[in-house]
Protein backbone atom coordinates (compact mmCIF):
# COMPACT_ATOMS: atom_id res chain seq x y z
CA UNK A 1 0.00 0.00 0.00
CA UNK A 2 2.80 2.41 0.91
CA UNK A 3 4.45 1.67 -2.43
CA UNK A 4 1.33 2.72 -4.30
CA UNK A 5 1.10 5.92 -2.29
CA UNK A 6 4.70 6.89 -2.98
CA UNK A 7 4.51 6.03 -6.67
CA UNK A 8 1.26 7.97 -6.97
CA UNK A 9 2.73 10.92 -5.05
CA UNK A 10 5.69 10.96 -7.43
CA UNK A 11 3.40 11.05 -10.45
CA UNK A 12 1.33 13.82 -8.88
CA UNK A 13 4.40 15.95 -8.24
CA UNK A 14 5.63 15.62 -11.80
CA UNK A 15 2.18 16.36 -13.21
CA UNK A 16 2.14 19.50 -11.06
CA UNK A 17 5.55 20.39 -12.49
CA UNK A 18 4.22 20.04 -16.04
CA UNK A 19 1.25 22.26 -15.17
CA UNK A 20 3.74 24.69 -13.65
CA UNK A 21 5.64 24.79 -16.96
CA UNK A 22 2.42 25.64 -18.76
CA UNK A 23 1.65 28.31 -16.16
CA UNK A 24 5.02 30.00 -16.63
CA UNK A 25 4.64 29.83 -20.39
CA UNK A 26 1.15 31.33 -20.26
CA UNK A 27 2.47 34.18 -18.11
CA UNK A 28 4.82 35.05 -20.95
CA UNK A 29 2.08 34.63 -23.52
CA UNK A 30 -0.19 37.03 -21.69
CA UNK A 31 2.24 39.95 -21.90
CA UNK A 32 3.63 41.75 -24.85
CA UNK A 33 6.86 43.00 -23.38
CA UNK A 34 9.38 41.47 -25.77
Amino acid at each position, binding site marked *: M*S*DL*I*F*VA*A*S*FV*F*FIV*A*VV*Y*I*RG*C*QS*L*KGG*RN*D*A
Partner: protein
Amino acid sequence: MTSNGWLQIGVFFALVLLAAKPMGLYMAQVYERKRTWLDPVLGPVERLLYRLTGVDAKAEMHWTEYGGAMLIFSLATMLLTYAVERLQHAIPLWNPQHWPAVEPYLAWNTAVSFTTNTNWQSYVPEQTMSYLTQMFGLATHNFWSAAVGMALAVAFIRGIARHESKTLGNFWVDLTRGTLWVLAPLCVVYALALVSQGVIQNFKPYDTATLVEKQNVTTTGTDGKPVTSVVTTQTIGQGPVASQEAIKMLGTNGGSFFNTNSAHPFENPTPLSNLMQMFSIFLIPAGFCVTLGRMVNSPKHGWAVFAAMSVLWFAGVLTCYWAEAQPNPLLKGVDQHVAQMGTAQQSGGNMEGKEVRFGVANSALFATVTTDASCGAVNSMHDSFMPLGGMIPLVNIHLGEIIFGGVGAGMYGMLIFVILTVFIAGLMVGRTPEYLGKKVEAFDVQMSMLYFLIFPVVILGFAAVSVLAPFGLSSLSNHGPHGLSQILYAYTSAAGNNGSAFAGLNANTHWYNSTLGITMLAGRFLMIVPMLAVAGNLATKKIAPPSLGTFPVTSPLFAVLLVGVIVIVGALTFFPALSLGPILEHLLLRVGTSFQ
Protein backbone atom coordinates in the same frame (compact mmCIF):
# COMPACT_ATOMS: atom_id res chain seq x y z
CA MET B 1 45.56 29.41 11.43
CA THR B 2 48.93 28.26 10.13
CA SER B 3 51.00 29.05 7.07
CA ASN B 4 50.95 25.34 6.28
CA GLY B 5 47.16 25.41 6.25
CA TRP B 6 47.06 28.46 3.97
CA LEU B 7 49.64 26.89 1.68
CA GLN B 8 47.39 23.85 1.20
CA ILE B 9 44.39 26.08 0.56
CA GLY B 10 46.45 28.05 -1.94
CA VAL B 11 47.57 24.89 -3.77
CA PHE B 12 43.95 23.77 -3.99
CA PHE B 13 42.81 27.03 -5.57
CA ALA B 14 45.78 27.16 -7.95
CA LEU B 15 44.80 23.71 -9.26
CA VAL B 16 41.20 24.82 -9.79
CA LEU B 17 42.38 27.96 -11.59
CA LEU B 18 44.73 26.01 -13.84
CA ALA B 19 42.14 23.35 -14.71
CA ALA B 20 39.20 25.68 -15.39
CA LYS B 21 40.22 26.73 -18.89
CA PRO B 22 41.02 23.33 -20.45
CA MET B 23 37.96 21.79 -18.76
CA GLY B 24 35.68 24.61 -19.89
CA LEU B 25 36.92 24.66 -23.48
CA TYR B 26 36.53 20.88 -23.69
CA MET B 27 32.94 21.06 -22.45
CA ALA B 28 32.17 23.81 -24.97
CA GLN B 29 33.47 21.50 -27.72
CA VAL B 30 31.31 18.65 -26.42
CA TYR B 31 28.07 20.61 -26.13
CA GLU B 32 28.56 22.50 -29.39
CA ARG B 33 28.99 19.08 -31.00
CA LYS B 34 32.43 19.90 -32.33
CA ARG B 35 35.09 17.28 -32.81
CA THR B 36 36.97 15.96 -29.77
CA TRP B 37 39.69 13.35 -29.44
CA LEU B 38 37.20 10.91 -27.91
CA ASP B 39 34.88 10.96 -30.94
CA PRO B 40 36.29 7.80 -32.59
CA VAL B 41 35.42 5.79 -29.48
CA LEU B 42 32.29 7.51 -28.21
CA GLY B 43 30.72 8.59 -31.51
CA PRO B 44 29.51 5.07 -32.39
CA VAL B 45 28.22 4.56 -28.84
CA GLU B 46 26.27 7.80 -29.04
CA ARG B 47 24.74 6.93 -32.41
CA LEU B 48 23.81 3.45 -31.16
CA LEU B 49 22.05 4.92 -28.12
CA TYR B 50 20.03 7.30 -30.30
CA ARG B 51 19.09 4.46 -32.65
CA LEU B 52 17.98 2.24 -29.75
CA THR B 53 15.95 4.97 -28.06
CA GLY B 54 14.58 6.58 -31.22
CA VAL B 55 16.05 9.98 -30.44
CA ASP B 56 16.35 12.39 -33.36
CA ALA B 57 19.64 14.06 -32.50
CA LYS B 58 19.04 16.91 -34.94
CA ALA B 59 15.68 17.89 -33.45
CA GLU B 60 15.68 21.10 -31.43
CA MET B 61 13.45 21.70 -28.40
CA HIS B 62 11.47 24.68 -27.14
CA TRP B 63 12.15 25.37 -23.46
CA THR B 64 8.86 23.74 -22.48
CA GLU B 65 9.78 20.57 -24.41
CA TYR B 66 13.26 20.62 -22.93
CA GLY B 67 11.79 20.90 -19.43
CA GLY B 68 9.20 18.23 -20.16
CA ALA B 69 11.82 15.76 -21.36
CA MET B 70 13.90 16.47 -18.25
CA LEU B 71 10.88 15.80 -16.02
CA ILE B 72 9.98 12.53 -17.76
CA PHE B 73 13.55 11.30 -17.51
CA SER B 74 13.77 12.24 -13.84
CA LEU B 75 10.45 10.60 -12.95
CA ALA B 76 11.32 7.37 -14.78
CA THR B 77 14.76 7.04 -13.20
CA MET B 78 13.41 7.95 -9.78
CA LEU B 79 10.80 5.19 -9.89
CA LEU B 80 13.44 2.76 -11.15
CA THR B 81 15.64 3.49 -8.15
CA TYR B 82 12.68 3.17 -5.81
CA ALA B 83 11.92 -0.26 -7.29
CA VAL B 84 15.54 -1.42 -6.94
CA GLU B 85 15.60 -0.42 -3.27
CA ARG B 86 12.30 -2.11 -2.51
CA LEU B 87 13.30 -5.30 -4.33
CA GLN B 88 16.95 -5.61 -3.33
CA HIS B 89 16.22 -8.57 -1.03
CA ALA B 90 14.63 -10.47 -3.92
CA ILE B 91 17.46 -9.93 -6.39
CA PRO B 92 20.08 -12.63 -5.76
CA LEU B 93 22.92 -10.47 -7.02
CA TRP B 94 25.57 -8.50 -5.18
CA ASN B 95 23.88 -8.65 -1.81
CA PRO B 96 26.37 -10.72 0.21
CA GLN B 97 25.14 -9.27 3.50
CA HIS B 98 21.53 -10.21 2.61
CA TRP B 99 20.16 -6.78 3.41
CA PRO B 100 16.34 -6.71 3.43
CA ALA B 101 14.16 -4.44 1.29
CA VAL B 102 14.50 -0.74 2.10
CA GLU B 103 11.50 0.56 4.06
CA PRO B 104 9.07 2.57 1.80
CA TYR B 105 9.51 6.03 3.39
CA LEU B 106 13.27 5.70 3.32
CA ALA B 107 13.30 4.21 -0.19
CA TRP B 108 11.25 7.11 -1.54
CA ASN B 109 13.37 9.68 0.27
CA THR B 110 16.52 8.09 -1.14
CA ALA B 111 15.14 7.80 -4.68
CA VAL B 112 14.14 11.48 -4.61
CA SER B 113 17.46 12.39 -3.04
CA PHE B 114 19.58 10.79 -5.76
CA THR B 115 17.31 11.95 -8.58
CA THR B 116 17.62 15.55 -7.49
CA ASN B 117 21.42 15.36 -7.11
CA THR B 118 20.93 15.92 -3.38
CA ASN B 119 22.15 12.58 -2.08
CA TRP B 120 20.77 13.22 1.37
CA GLN B 121 21.12 9.95 3.25
CA SER B 122 18.77 9.22 6.14
CA TYR B 123 20.35 5.81 6.56
CA VAL B 124 23.64 4.04 7.21
CA PRO B 125 24.58 2.94 3.66
CA GLU B 126 26.74 -0.04 4.60
CA GLN B 127 23.94 -1.38 6.80
CA THR B 128 21.06 -0.72 4.41
CA MET B 129 21.95 -0.92 0.72
CA SER B 130 23.12 -3.99 -1.23
CA TYR B 131 26.04 -3.61 -3.63
CA LEU B 132 23.53 -3.82 -6.49
CA THR B 133 21.48 -0.95 -5.07
CA GLN B 134 24.61 1.11 -4.47
CA MET B 135 25.76 0.62 -8.06
CA PHE B 136 22.61 0.27 -10.15
CA GLY B 137 20.25 2.38 -8.08
CA LEU B 138 22.50 5.08 -6.66
CA ALA B 139 25.79 5.38 -8.57
CA THR B 140 23.99 5.46 -11.93
CA HIS B 141 21.85 8.27 -10.59
CA ASN B 142 25.01 10.11 -9.68
CA PHE B 143 25.81 10.19 -13.41
CA TRP B 144 22.28 10.95 -14.56
CA SER B 145 21.45 13.74 -12.12
CA ALA B 146 24.81 15.41 -12.77
CA ALA B 147 24.38 15.14 -16.53
CA VAL B 148 20.87 16.62 -16.22
CA GLY B 149 22.27 19.62 -14.31
CA MET B 150 24.99 20.12 -16.90
CA ALA B 151 22.46 19.89 -19.74
CA LEU B 152 20.28 22.53 -18.09
CA ALA B 153 23.23 24.89 -17.66
CA VAL B 154 24.13 24.46 -21.32
CA ALA B 155 20.52 25.14 -22.26
CA PHE B 156 20.64 28.40 -20.29
CA ILE B 157 23.93 29.40 -21.90
CA ARG B 158 22.42 28.71 -25.33
CA GLY B 159 19.50 30.93 -24.36
CA ILE B 160 21.98 33.75 -23.82
CA ALA B 161 24.07 32.94 -26.89
CA ARG B 162 21.26 32.48 -29.39
CA HIS B 163 19.10 35.24 -30.77
CA GLU B 164 15.66 35.16 -32.36
CA SER B 165 15.53 31.44 -31.71
CA LYS B 166 12.68 29.43 -30.22
CA THR B 167 14.81 26.50 -29.11
CA LEU B 168 17.49 25.65 -26.53
CA GLY B 169 18.94 22.43 -27.96
CA ASN B 170 18.00 18.80 -27.45
CA PHE B 171 17.79 17.49 -23.88
CA TRP B 172 18.50 13.88 -24.83
CA VAL B 173 21.61 14.83 -26.80
CA ASP B 174 22.93 17.09 -24.03
CA LEU B 175 22.27 14.38 -21.46
CA THR B 176 24.04 11.74 -23.52
CA ARG B 177 27.05 13.85 -24.47
CA GLY B 178 27.54 15.10 -20.91
CA THR B 179 27.56 11.55 -19.62
CA LEU B 180 29.67 9.96 -22.35
CA TRP B 181 32.17 12.71 -23.11
CA VAL B 182 32.59 14.43 -19.74
CA LEU B 183 31.58 12.33 -16.74
CA ALA B 184 32.38 8.77 -17.81
CA PRO B 185 35.97 9.26 -19.04
CA LEU B 186 36.89 11.48 -16.10
CA CYS B 187 35.46 8.94 -13.66
CA VAL B 188 37.42 6.02 -15.12
CA VAL B 189 40.71 7.87 -14.65
CA TYR B 190 39.68 9.32 -11.31
CA ALA B 191 38.51 5.99 -9.85
CA LEU B 192 41.85 4.39 -10.74
CA ALA B 193 43.68 7.31 -9.12
CA LEU B 194 41.62 6.80 -5.96
CA VAL B 195 42.42 3.09 -5.94
CA SER B 196 46.11 4.02 -6.10
CA GLN B 197 45.59 5.90 -2.84
CA GLY B 198 43.93 2.95 -1.12
CA VAL B 199 40.23 3.40 -1.85
CA ILE B 200 38.75 -0.10 -2.03
CA GLN B 201 36.92 -1.64 -5.01
CA ASN B 202 35.60 -5.18 -4.51
CA PHE B 203 32.47 -7.30 -4.13
CA LYS B 204 33.58 -9.18 -1.03
CA PRO B 205 31.35 -9.86 1.97
CA TYR B 206 32.25 -7.71 4.97
CA ASP B 207 35.36 -8.66 6.95
CA THR B 208 35.36 -9.44 10.65
CA ALA B 209 38.33 -8.47 12.82
CA THR B 210 39.02 -9.56 16.38
CA LEU B 211 39.61 -6.59 18.64
CA VAL B 212 42.95 -6.35 20.44
CA GLU B 213 41.12 -5.16 23.52
CA LYS B 214 37.58 -6.14 24.45
CA GLN B 215 35.22 -3.21 24.68
CA ASN B 216 32.36 -2.69 27.11
CA VAL B 217 29.51 -1.01 25.24
CA THR B 218 26.47 0.38 27.01
CA THR B 219 23.26 0.77 25.02
CA THR B 220 19.63 1.42 25.91
CA GLY B 221 17.53 -1.74 26.06
CA THR B 222 13.94 -2.15 24.89
CA ASP B 223 12.78 -1.47 28.45
CA GLY B 224 14.64 1.84 28.47
CA LYS B 225 17.28 0.63 30.92
CA PRO B 226 21.01 0.65 30.10
CA VAL B 227 22.42 -2.65 28.89
CA THR B 228 26.16 -3.30 28.92
CA SER B 229 27.64 -5.90 26.58
CA VAL B 230 31.18 -6.99 25.76
CA VAL B 231 32.23 -6.49 22.13
CA THR B 232 35.12 -8.61 20.89
CA THR B 233 34.88 -8.28 17.12
CA GLN B 234 34.49 -5.48 14.58
CA THR B 235 32.75 -5.73 11.20
CA ILE B 236 34.63 -3.92 8.44
CA GLY B 237 32.56 -2.89 5.45
CA GLN B 238 33.70 -3.68 1.90
CA GLY B 239 32.34 -2.98 -1.57
CA PRO B 240 32.77 -1.20 -4.91
CA VAL B 241 33.70 2.12 -3.34
CA ALA B 242 36.17 3.77 -5.75
CA SER B 243 33.79 3.67 -8.72
CA GLN B 244 31.10 5.37 -6.66
CA GLU B 245 33.52 7.78 -5.02
CA ALA B 246 34.68 9.20 -8.35
CA ILE B 247 31.25 10.24 -9.59
CA LYS B 248 30.18 11.19 -6.08
CA MET B 249 32.71 14.02 -6.16
CA LEU B 250 32.90 14.88 -9.87
CA GLY B 251 29.13 15.00 -10.19
CA THR B 252 28.84 17.04 -6.96
CA ASN B 253 26.53 14.32 -5.65
CA GLY B 254 28.04 13.61 -2.25
CA GLY B 255 26.18 10.41 -1.42
CA SER B 256 28.65 8.14 0.28
CA PHE B 257 29.23 4.40 0.36
CA PHE B 258 29.93 4.51 4.09
CA ASN B 259 28.08 6.48 6.72
CA THR B 260 31.04 8.65 7.65
CA ASN B 261 31.43 9.71 4.03
CA SER B 262 34.85 11.09 3.10
CA ALA B 263 36.03 10.80 6.70
CA HIS B 264 36.11 6.99 6.19
CA PRO B 265 39.61 5.69 5.43
CA PHE B 266 38.26 3.41 2.67
CA GLU B 267 36.70 6.42 0.91
CA ASN B 268 39.37 9.02 1.55
CA PRO B 269 42.58 7.42 2.80
CA THR B 270 45.30 10.04 2.32
CA PRO B 271 45.86 13.80 2.24
CA LEU B 272 46.40 13.46 -1.52
CA SER B 273 43.05 11.69 -2.02
CA ASN B 274 41.51 14.46 0.08
CA LEU B 275 42.99 17.12 -2.20
CA MET B 276 41.81 15.20 -5.26
CA GLN B 277 38.30 14.99 -3.85
CA MET B 278 38.04 18.71 -3.14
CA PHE B 279 39.53 19.56 -6.53
CA SER B 280 37.13 17.26 -8.34
CA ILE B 281 34.13 18.96 -6.70
CA PHE B 282 35.10 22.29 -8.28
CA LEU B 283 36.53 20.97 -11.55
CA ILE B 284 33.40 20.94 -13.73
CA PRO B 285 31.66 23.95 -12.08
CA ALA B 286 34.81 26.08 -12.50
CA GLY B 287 35.13 24.87 -16.07
CA PHE B 288 31.58 25.99 -16.76
CA CYS B 289 32.68 29.64 -16.32
CA VAL B 290 34.99 29.19 -19.29
CA THR B 291 32.30 27.28 -21.19
CA LEU B 292 29.98 30.23 -20.61
CA GLY B 293 32.55 32.67 -21.93
CA ARG B 294 33.26 30.56 -25.00
CA MET B 295 29.63 29.84 -25.91
CA VAL B 296 28.43 33.45 -25.51
CA ASN B 297 31.57 34.67 -27.26
CA SER B 298 32.68 36.75 -24.28
CA PRO B 299 35.51 34.98 -22.45
CA LYS B 300 35.97 37.98 -20.16
CA HIS B 301 32.38 37.60 -18.95
CA GLY B 302 33.12 34.01 -18.00
CA TRP B 303 36.18 35.09 -16.04
CA ALA B 304 34.21 37.91 -14.35
CA VAL B 305 31.75 35.28 -13.10
CA PHE B 306 34.70 33.11 -12.04
CA ALA B 307 36.15 36.07 -10.10
CA ALA B 308 32.88 36.69 -8.27
CA MET B 309 32.68 33.01 -7.32
CA SER B 310 36.30 33.05 -6.16
CA VAL B 311 35.76 36.05 -3.88
CA LEU B 312 32.80 34.35 -2.20
CA TRP B 313 34.72 31.08 -1.88
CA PHE B 314 37.65 32.85 -0.24
CA ALA B 315 35.39 34.72 2.19
CA GLY B 316 33.82 31.42 3.21
CA VAL B 317 37.03 29.47 3.70
CA LEU B 318 38.66 32.37 5.56
CA THR B 319 35.78 32.62 8.03
CA CYS B 320 35.39 28.87 8.50
CA TYR B 321 39.13 28.27 8.94
CA TRP B 322 39.40 31.19 11.39
CA ALA B 323 36.43 29.94 13.44
CA GLU B 324 37.71 26.35 13.60
CA ALA B 325 41.28 27.39 14.41
CA GLN B 326 40.02 29.05 17.62
CA PRO B 327 39.97 27.09 20.87
CA ASN B 328 36.57 26.23 22.29
CA PRO B 329 36.06 28.77 25.12
CA LEU B 330 34.14 26.21 27.20
CA LEU B 331 37.20 23.97 27.37
CA LYS B 332 39.66 26.65 28.42
CA GLY B 333 41.12 25.80 31.79
CA VAL B 334 38.73 22.90 32.34
CA ASP B 335 41.25 20.16 31.98
CA GLN B 336 44.92 20.28 31.31
CA HIS B 337 44.53 17.32 28.92
CA VAL B 338 42.25 19.36 26.64
CA ALA B 339 45.09 21.27 25.07
CA GLN B 340 43.79 23.28 22.15
CA MET B 341 46.92 25.06 21.03
CA GLY B 342 48.84 23.87 18.01
CA THR B 343 51.83 21.69 18.90
CA ALA B 344 54.03 19.17 17.15
CA GLN B 345 51.52 16.51 18.16
CA GLN B 346 48.26 18.22 17.17
CA SER B 347 46.99 20.90 14.85
CA GLY B 348 45.24 22.89 17.56
CA GLY B 349 41.86 24.61 17.39
CA ASN B 350 38.55 22.82 17.48
CA MET B 351 39.32 19.20 16.55
CA GLU B 352 35.97 17.76 17.67
CA GLY B 353 34.39 15.86 14.78
CA LYS B 354 37.49 16.18 12.62
CA GLU B 355 39.86 13.57 11.21
CA VAL B 356 43.40 13.99 12.52
CA ARG B 357 44.58 12.94 9.05
CA PHE B 358 43.13 16.17 7.64
CA GLY B 359 43.26 18.63 10.54
CA VAL B 360 41.51 21.97 10.84
CA ALA B 361 42.59 23.58 7.55
CA ASN B 362 41.55 20.72 5.29
CA SER B 363 38.33 20.16 7.24
CA ALA B 364 37.34 23.83 6.95
CA LEU B 365 38.29 23.88 3.27
CA PHE B 366 36.37 20.68 2.55
CA ALA B 367 33.28 21.97 4.39
CA THR B 368 33.41 25.22 2.43
CA VAL B 369 33.96 23.58 -0.94
CA THR B 370 31.30 20.91 -0.50
CA THR B 371 28.65 23.51 0.36
CA ASP B 372 29.81 26.10 -2.18
CA ALA B 373 29.02 23.36 -4.64
CA SER B 374 25.95 21.20 -4.17
CA CYS B 375 28.14 18.20 -3.31
CA GLY B 376 27.39 17.37 0.29
CA ALA B 377 30.27 14.98 0.86
CA VAL B 378 31.95 15.65 4.20
CA ASN B 379 35.30 14.77 5.72
CA SER B 380 34.35 16.18 9.13
CA MET B 381 31.10 16.58 11.04
CA HIS B 382 29.63 20.06 10.56
CA ASP B 383 27.56 19.60 13.72
CA SER B 384 30.79 19.66 15.73
CA PHE B 385 32.09 22.87 14.20
CA MET B 386 32.17 26.04 16.25
CA PRO B 387 28.91 27.98 15.77
CA LEU B 388 30.35 30.45 13.26
CA GLY B 389 32.34 27.71 11.52
CA GLY B 390 29.18 25.64 11.14
CA MET B 391 27.31 28.69 9.91
CA ILE B 392 29.52 28.95 6.80
CA PRO B 393 28.28 25.71 5.18
CA LEU B 394 24.75 26.84 6.01
CA VAL B 395 25.27 30.29 4.46
CA ASN B 396 26.95 28.82 1.38
CA ILE B 397 23.83 26.77 0.67
CA HIS B 398 21.56 29.70 1.54
CA LEU B 399 23.26 31.77 -1.14
CA GLY B 400 21.99 29.23 -3.64
CA GLU B 401 25.14 27.14 -4.09
CA ILE B 402 26.34 29.42 -6.82
CA ILE B 403 29.94 29.64 -5.58
CA PHE B 404 31.08 27.41 -8.44
CA GLY B 405 28.08 25.39 -7.36
CA GLY B 406 26.78 22.02 -8.41
CA VAL B 407 27.68 20.70 -11.85
CA GLY B 408 25.48 22.81 -14.08
CA ALA B 409 23.15 23.83 -11.27
CA GLY B 410 25.72 26.29 -9.93
CA MET B 411 26.09 27.93 -13.32
CA TYR B 412 22.39 28.36 -14.05
CA GLY B 413 21.81 29.58 -10.48
CA MET B 414 24.59 32.11 -10.90
CA LEU B 415 23.18 33.25 -14.24
CA ILE B 416 19.85 34.01 -12.59
CA PHE B 417 21.80 36.21 -10.16
CA VAL B 418 23.50 37.83 -13.16
CA ILE B 419 20.07 38.65 -14.62
CA LEU B 420 19.08 40.24 -11.31
CA THR B 421 22.37 42.15 -11.09
CA VAL B 422 22.01 43.52 -14.59
CA PHE B 423 18.42 44.49 -13.79
CA ILE B 424 19.48 46.35 -10.64
CA ALA B 425 22.36 48.03 -12.47
CA GLY B 426 19.90 49.17 -15.12
CA LEU B 427 17.62 50.64 -12.49
CA MET B 428 20.55 52.45 -10.89
CA VAL B 429 21.51 54.23 -14.11
CA GLY B 430 17.96 54.69 -15.35
CA ARG B 431 18.41 52.64 -18.54
CA THR B 432 16.69 49.54 -19.86
CA PRO B 433 18.73 46.65 -18.42
CA GLU B 434 20.71 44.73 -21.01
CA TYR B 435 22.61 41.48 -20.71
CA LEU B 436 25.07 40.79 -23.49
CA GLY B 437 23.01 42.86 -25.88
CA LYS B 438 19.62 41.51 -24.82
CA LYS B 439 17.04 43.56 -22.99
CA VAL B 440 16.05 42.18 -19.61
CA GLU B 441 12.31 42.62 -19.30
CA ALA B 442 9.47 42.06 -16.89
CA PHE B 443 9.01 38.35 -17.64
CA ASP B 444 12.70 37.62 -17.08
CA VAL B 445 12.66 39.35 -13.70
CA GLN B 446 9.37 37.73 -12.68
CA MET B 447 10.72 34.27 -13.42
CA SER B 448 14.00 35.10 -11.67
CA MET B 449 12.14 36.21 -8.56
CA LEU B 450 10.02 33.05 -8.66
CA TYR B 451 13.29 31.10 -8.74
CA PHE B 452 14.56 32.98 -5.69
CA LEU B 453 11.33 32.78 -3.68
CA ILE B 454 10.71 29.03 -3.91
CA PHE B 455 13.96 28.34 -2.09
CA PRO B 456 13.24 30.14 1.22
CA VAL B 457 9.56 29.21 1.17
CA VAL B 458 10.24 25.47 1.35
CA ILE B 459 13.17 25.80 3.77
CA LEU B 460 11.63 28.18 6.26
CA GLY B 461 8.12 26.73 5.93
CA PHE B 462 9.05 23.16 6.82
CA ALA B 463 11.65 24.28 9.40
CA ALA B 464 9.00 26.40 11.13
CA VAL B 465 6.61 23.44 11.40
CA SER B 466 9.42 21.18 12.62
CA VAL B 467 10.47 23.48 15.46
CA LEU B 468 6.85 23.67 16.68
CA ALA B 469 5.73 20.07 16.34
CA PRO B 470 6.76 17.21 18.65
CA PHE B 471 7.47 14.93 15.67
CA GLY B 472 10.04 17.48 14.51
CA LEU B 473 11.63 18.15 17.86
CA SER B 474 11.91 14.49 18.86
CA SER B 475 14.72 13.97 16.32
CA LEU B 476 17.04 16.57 17.83
CA SER B 477 20.26 15.68 19.63
CA ASN B 478 20.67 19.22 21.00
CA HIS B 479 18.22 21.84 22.13
CA GLY B 480 18.35 25.64 22.03
CA PRO B 481 19.88 27.49 19.08
CA HIS B 482 21.97 24.49 18.06
CA GLY B 483 18.80 22.43 17.68
CA LEU B 484 17.35 25.12 15.42
CA SER B 485 20.55 25.00 13.35
CA GLN B 486 20.14 21.23 12.97
CA ILE B 487 16.61 21.53 11.63
CA LEU B 488 17.42 24.57 9.49
CA TYR B 489 20.45 22.79 8.05
CA ALA B 490 18.42 19.70 7.12
CA TYR B 491 15.85 21.63 5.07
CA THR B 492 18.48 23.97 3.66
CA SER B 493 20.58 21.02 2.53
CA ALA B 494 17.53 19.35 1.00
CA ALA B 495 16.24 22.43 -0.83
CA GLY B 496 19.72 23.30 -2.05
CA ASN B 497 20.14 19.70 -3.26
CA ASN B 498 23.36 19.61 -1.23
CA GLY B 499 22.80 16.52 0.86
CA SER B 500 25.31 17.14 3.61
CA ALA B 501 23.94 16.67 7.09
CA PHE B 502 24.64 18.64 10.22
CA ALA B 503 24.84 15.17 11.71
CA GLY B 504 22.93 15.83 14.90
CA LEU B 505 19.43 15.20 13.59
CA ASN B 506 17.84 11.78 13.22
CA ALA B 507 16.11 12.30 9.89
CA ASN B 508 15.03 8.69 9.42
CA THR B 509 11.47 9.35 10.61
CA HIS B 510 8.27 9.48 8.60
CA TRP B 511 8.05 13.25 9.03
CA TYR B 512 11.56 14.05 7.93
CA ASN B 513 11.75 11.40 5.20
CA SER B 514 8.58 12.66 3.55
CA THR B 515 9.01 16.43 4.01
CA LEU B 516 12.68 16.40 3.11
CA GLY B 517 11.71 14.45 -0.01
CA ILE B 518 9.17 17.12 -0.94
CA THR B 519 11.74 19.83 -0.19
CA MET B 520 14.30 18.18 -2.47
CA LEU B 521 11.79 17.89 -5.31
CA ALA B 522 10.69 21.51 -4.92
CA GLY B 523 14.26 22.76 -4.59
CA ARG B 524 15.23 21.02 -7.81
CA PHE B 525 12.34 21.02 -10.24
CA LEU B 526 10.26 24.01 -9.17
CA MET B 527 13.40 26.14 -9.50
CA ILE B 528 14.48 24.64 -12.82
CA VAL B 529 11.22 25.55 -14.55
CA PRO B 530 11.42 29.36 -14.11
CA MET B 531 15.13 29.18 -14.94
CA LEU B 532 14.33 27.45 -18.23
CA ALA B 533 11.58 30.00 -18.87
CA VAL B 534 14.16 32.80 -18.59
CA ALA B 535 16.51 30.90 -20.91
CA GLY B 536 13.78 30.27 -23.45
CA ASN B 537 12.75 33.91 -23.39
CA LEU B 538 16.32 35.17 -23.73
CA ALA B 539 16.82 32.98 -26.80
CA THR B 540 13.93 34.69 -28.60
CA LYS B 541 15.35 38.20 -28.19
CA LYS B 542 17.24 40.27 -30.71
CA ILE B 543 20.78 41.33 -29.90
CA ALA B 544 21.32 45.08 -29.81
CA PRO B 545 24.81 46.55 -30.25
CA PRO B 546 26.31 47.91 -27.02
CA SER B 547 25.76 51.61 -26.36
CA LEU B 548 27.05 54.11 -23.80
CA GLY B 549 24.29 53.05 -21.44
CA THR B 550 25.13 49.33 -21.61
CA PHE B 551 26.40 47.96 -18.32
CA PRO B 552 29.53 45.93 -19.13
CA VAL B 553 29.43 42.42 -17.69
CA THR B 554 33.15 41.88 -18.13
CA SER B 555 34.49 44.45 -15.67
CA PRO B 556 35.61 44.18 -12.04
CA LEU B 557 32.71 46.52 -11.18
CA PHE B 558 30.29 43.91 -12.51
CA ALA B 559 31.94 41.21 -10.40
CA VAL B 560 31.72 43.42 -7.28
CA LEU B 561 28.07 44.25 -7.94
CA LEU B 562 27.29 40.58 -8.55
CA VAL B 563 28.87 39.61 -5.23
CA GLY B 564 26.93 42.39 -3.51
CA VAL B 565 23.59 41.27 -4.95
CA ILE B 566 24.24 37.64 -3.97
CA VAL B 567 25.18 38.56 -0.40
CA ILE B 568 22.27 40.98 0.04
CA VAL B 569 19.66 38.55 -1.31
CA GLY B 570 21.03 35.76 0.89
CA ALA B 571 21.40 37.97 3.94
CA LEU B 572 17.95 39.51 3.69
CA THR B 573 16.32 36.13 3.27
CA PHE B 574 18.00 34.03 5.92
CA PHE B 575 19.66 36.40 8.39
CA PRO B 576 16.73 36.30 10.88
CA ALA B 577 16.89 32.50 11.02
CA LEU B 578 20.68 32.52 11.31
CA SER B 579 20.56 35.06 14.12
CA LEU B 580 18.39 32.67 16.15
CA GLY B 581 20.62 29.71 15.35
CA PRO B 582 24.41 29.83 14.94
CA ILE B 583 24.86 33.53 15.74
CA LEU B 584 22.96 33.28 19.03
CA GLU B 585 24.80 30.06 19.86
CA HIS B 586 28.12 31.83 19.26
CA LEU B 587 27.19 34.70 21.58
CA LEU B 588 25.96 32.34 24.31
CA LEU B 589 29.07 30.20 24.01
CA ARG B 590 31.21 33.24 24.76
CA VAL B 591 29.42 33.70 28.08
CA GLY B 592 29.73 30.01 28.92
CA THR B 593 26.31 28.68 27.93
CA SER B 594 25.83 25.50 25.92
CA PHE B 595 22.82 23.25 25.28
CA GLN B 596 22.48 19.49 25.72
